[in-house]
Each structure stands twice: as C-alpha cells, then as structure tokens.
C-alpha cells in the first residue's frame, strides 16, 4: 500500500517542475532495493493525475539492479538473495554500490 503515497510524491514533484506545460512522460529511476510495484504505481498514477497537467501521461521506470562491490578484490556482482559473499574471492567485506536509487530523473513536457 505504500505505492499510493509514493505516487502522490511523484505527482507533486512532476507538477511542481512542469509549470504550465502539459506532462507527457515522467522518468523514474528505481533501484532494486527500493521496493515498489510498477503496476500499482501506474494504477494510482492514472487516478491521481486526473484533471491535472499530468493526466494521460506515461510513467517510465528505469530499474537499476542491486550491485555489490568486493572490498578485497574489487569484483562487482549481483547479490543472489541468500548471501552477500563475493563470488570471486569469498570475502564478506563487500558494500552496496547500486540499487538504492529512488528518484524522479526528468519529465517530458509538451
């Protein structure tokens, strides 16, 4: 259910930046560790954007996969949900290097 408040946040940002222009598309960048369901956001979007400058616009999701970087050997890998160990050298000294993104990157206006 957190998609509703998130969608409202996206709409506020988009409208705040569109001025008087009509919004055609909103471009989002969402990392794997930011859990939202695209379809659910689009569903709320269609309802919330009605009668605004964003009515009828499209949400575009750029998904960034989760990525970790090994501090011991520099290897970059995707966590598999069961372990964070580096698959190259088995070190557990690793850090998250991608996947936390959660932002409106741009809007396309008429």
């Amino acid at each position, binding site marked *: 259910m957190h998609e509703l408040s998130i969608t409202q946040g996206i709409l506020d940002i988009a409208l705040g930046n569109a001025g008087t222009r009509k919004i055609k598309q909103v471009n989002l960048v969402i990392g794997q*560790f930011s859990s939202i369901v695209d379809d659910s956001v689009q569903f709320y979007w269609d309802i919330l954007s009605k009668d605004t400058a964003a009515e009828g616009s499209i949400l575009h999701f750029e998904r960034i996969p989760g990525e*970790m970087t090994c501090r011991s050997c520099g290897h970059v890998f995707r966590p598999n949900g069961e372990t964070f160990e580096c698959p190259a050298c088995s070190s557990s000294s690793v850090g998250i290097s991608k996947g936390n993104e959660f932002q*409106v990157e*741009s*809007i396309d206006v008429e």
Partner: protein
Amino acid sequence: MNTRIPIIEKILSANDRIAARNREVLDHAGVYAINIMASPGAGKTSFILKTLDALNGRLKLGVVEGDLASSIDAEKAMAAGLPAVQINTGGDCHLDAVMLADALPSLPLQDLDLVVVENVGNLICPASFLLGTHLNVLIASIPEGDDKPYKYPGMYMGMQALIINKIDLLPYVPFNMEYFKQGVEVLNPGVTPFPVSCKTGEGMDVWADWLVGKVNTQKNNGT
C-alpha cells in the same frame, strides 16, 4: 515536440522535509525519539513494555502507536501509565512523517525524555519513510530466520540499532547467528546488535543502559 526537463529529486523528498521539521520539534522540546520497526509477530509491543520495565523510571516516556486499524496497543501502553497516542494508518503499511507530525502535539513533549514510536509491522518499506526520529530500531526475532538481512536489505540499511529478540528460542530453532550477523554487517557496518529475550528479560538491561546513554548524550548536546 516534447521537451525533457531534468529534475533528479528524491521521490520521498516531501516526506523528508516534514521529517526534518519533526526533528526540530523534538529537539526544541529536548526529547529523544526512536522509531521501532519489525515484521508482524517479532514482538514490538512486548519489547516496548519490557523496555519500560528495564528503564525503571530513569526516563519519562511517551508512546506513539502506529497500527493498521485498531487501538488495542495504545490502550496497553496507557494501562502501563504512559502518555500514548494512536495513529491508525487506515491501511497504509508504514508510518510517514506527516502522521508523526499530527501525533506529536497530543503528547506532553516538554515533560518527556523519550518518545517511542511503534511503526506498523512490515519489513518492506517503513525504513524508507523517515519520521524525524533520532534512531531507527529494527527488531529481528529468532523464529523469523537468519536470512532476513539478505531478503530485506532496505530495512537493514535503514536502521541504527538492531534488537535480536526471542533468543530464548535459539536452542529450538535453526538460526545461524554468524550468517545473520554477516549479512547485517555488510548492510550496516558497525551497527549495535542487542540480543534480548522479552520472555526471560535477558539482555534488556544492556539495551536499556545503552538507550539511556543515547538520550543523555542528546540532551547534553542540545543544551
């Protein structure tokens, strides 16, 4: 012809701004606030009540209870003698900064040292919604399994103190503490874990002492 306007703004930036205002309200009143997050059944309410016992009158507490749709928990807190306010989220799976902003005026902040916010039981998103509290506390419990950090990295990244509850069950439930802690350390290096049992009371003193230290440090810095 369409024009692209670059924005690059965090989706939750409006929430974060209100969270910052909540923090100002709390700091102004000299109150430390903690946000307690956990999955359903991890033992949040009993942990809060046990924390109250372990604090043994050293701090004056208020409670904010987040719940999907009931007020049983706030009644429990009030029965324990605490000023409490209930937030019914009406189906939302988390508290957000606006909800806390609405709740804070119902507490006698000037008379309190510590506000304990009990978030909605959910491991997916509460850590993404900053409330303005000083400390995010995550309660993990032994029966939930040792793989939770790997399954819900967002929650484990978004906390500053980790309670490992129900350690009295360790002899009976398969739980690899080393594996669990490895995941935690990757997501949140240096975080303080507190193994406790709300049932036996084990570990509660260590947690309570640490919390009192946090509150006092904050108070001294604030004045």
